[in-house]
């Protein structure tokens, strides 16, 4: 019967799931890097506020993508309930939903003391009124500041959980060789942290612009260069796995490696060009911000392309 196999891609989870996976990984890794930086490298109120709230916004938009495509959004209550982990401990969406929810809460609590102290935030019409409430001061001082590192680590653990989950979700579909392998969570996690560093470099170069952040930017650039290099190595091994793997993998390889969007858009402009730009910055340095800003934008675009092409290139083998 196997001689009559047919091969097809799917139209069930398309670009909107790619957006969900992208913003989920990017938002989570942004929070993780921001909080670890604040806890262990340099106290940085502006970075925490920008990183935490843009990360939470990304996660919200990403989750909204999934939510609006549900057949029955009322039933989402079943997966928001943390007890779902006892009923469905083998479902990565159940774990991912809990990671996302708790990371947003812990992220909010970690950033709250900085927000309460921010004069600009206290002057905002609605938010300011909330921040000036006594209860917010008490919450900030008695809970958030007192257990600041614990909260930071809780957010970090949940954030890493989200980043890994975006890959584990695809890995749990056994019919598609491109997805059902241990390389996917690794690739998606590395990509999530690489895009997060690129996003934070954009913030530091274009929004926050503190003079004394020079060494932080250099550290982020170096780390991102290594992550892009790791991503290239993982993709290289993926290529060999797929080229010599089963038919589903081979056909996915054909789809990907014959597509200019994947080759030039993702591999070329999304990985190799930013790698070279950041490598030059690491070795010799740049006089202006433009090359690193360009590299960051390219890494961010590449991060989306990776997930987009992964969703569309998954090949199912059907014996009919």
């Amino acid at each position, binding site marked *: 019967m196997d001689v009559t196999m047919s091969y097809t891609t799917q139209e069930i989870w398309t670009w909107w799931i790619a957006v969900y996976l992208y913003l989920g990984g990017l938002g989570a890794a942004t929070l993780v890097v921001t909080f670890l930086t604040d806890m262990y490298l340099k106290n940085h109120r502006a970075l925490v506020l920008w990183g935490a709230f843009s990360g939470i916004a990304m996660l919200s938009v990403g989750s909204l993508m999934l939510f609006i495509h549900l*057949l029955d959004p009322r039933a989402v209550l079943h997966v928001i309930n943390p007890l*779902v982990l006892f009923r469905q401990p083998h*479902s990565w*969406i159940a774990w991912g939903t809990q990671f996302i929810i708790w990371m947003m809460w812990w992220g909010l609590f970690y950033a709250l003391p900085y927000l309460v102290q921010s004069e600009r935030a206290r002057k905002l019409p609605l938010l300011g009124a909330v921040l000036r409430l006594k209860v917010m001061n008490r919450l900030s001082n008695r809970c958030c500041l007192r257990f600041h590192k614990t909260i930071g680590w809780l957010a970090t653990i949940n954030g890493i959980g989200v980043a890994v989950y975006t890959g584990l979700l695809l890995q749990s579909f056994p019919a598609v060789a491109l997805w059902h392998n241990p390389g996917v969570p690794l690739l998606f996690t590395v990509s999530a942290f690489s895009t997060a560093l690129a996003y934070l470099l954009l913030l530091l170069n274009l929004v926050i612009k503190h003079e004394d952040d020079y060494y932080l930017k250099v550290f982020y650039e170096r780390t991102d260069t290594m992550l892009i290099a790791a991503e290239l190595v993982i993709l290289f091994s993926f290529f060999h796995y797929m080229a010599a793997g089963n038919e589903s993998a081979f056909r996915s390889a054909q789809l990907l490696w014959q597509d200019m969007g994947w080759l030039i858009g993702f591999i070329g402009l999304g990985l190799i060009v930013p790698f070279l730009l950041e490598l030059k910055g690491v070795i010799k340095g740049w006089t202006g911000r433009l090359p690193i800003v360009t590299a960051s934008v390219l890494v961010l675009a590449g991060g989306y392309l990776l997930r987009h092409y992964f969703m569309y290139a998954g090949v199912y083998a059907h014996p*009919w």
Partner: protein
Amino acid sequence: MTRFAMVIDLNTCVGCNACMAACAMENQTPVWKNKWRTYVHDKEIGSGEDVHRRFFPRLCNHCDNPPCLSVCPTGATYKLDNGIVKVDEALCMGCRACAMACPYDARLEVTHDDVETGRDFYGEAYRRSRPSMDKCTFCDHRLEQGLQPACVETCVGSARQFGDLDDPNDPVAQMVARGVARPLMPHLGTRPNVYYIDDLKRRG
């Protein structure tokens, strides 16, 4: 213990699609959108003058290790002791992860629009009240009454046979035990309970 299974003989399926019609009427599926719990593929195999048509019925394989169940985030997909995999439509939020996980393309979505149309199409007898992912249940409501699944009962060529794998005297169990009937893509580890008798060997 009962463990239900189906054997499909590709040699005797004539492609009349009566199984699709019987299933659709029995289980009120959204046929107006060409969505079926069971579907018969029509394929030409061979080249030149040596070509023949193959009709290939497919449905949920009620796997012993169902990936649709393990990915389901709400627990809407569940498995009965007799091996039948079902969906609780009240728990299903319709994320479609089950459809992504299923190697046998056995999941279909029933949308709000389908529920509305279903009320007009099937009339007062329409049982569904909310959207969800849907799938074959081996007509377990008929099994409870001692009947065969609708597709099995209606099959004119007796291409579909239904039985209990745990009953050594059951013809279905015997065909499976002898290896005459084989599962689809067993290498995926899903341990399906729908088995097929190959037609190409007999055609030479």
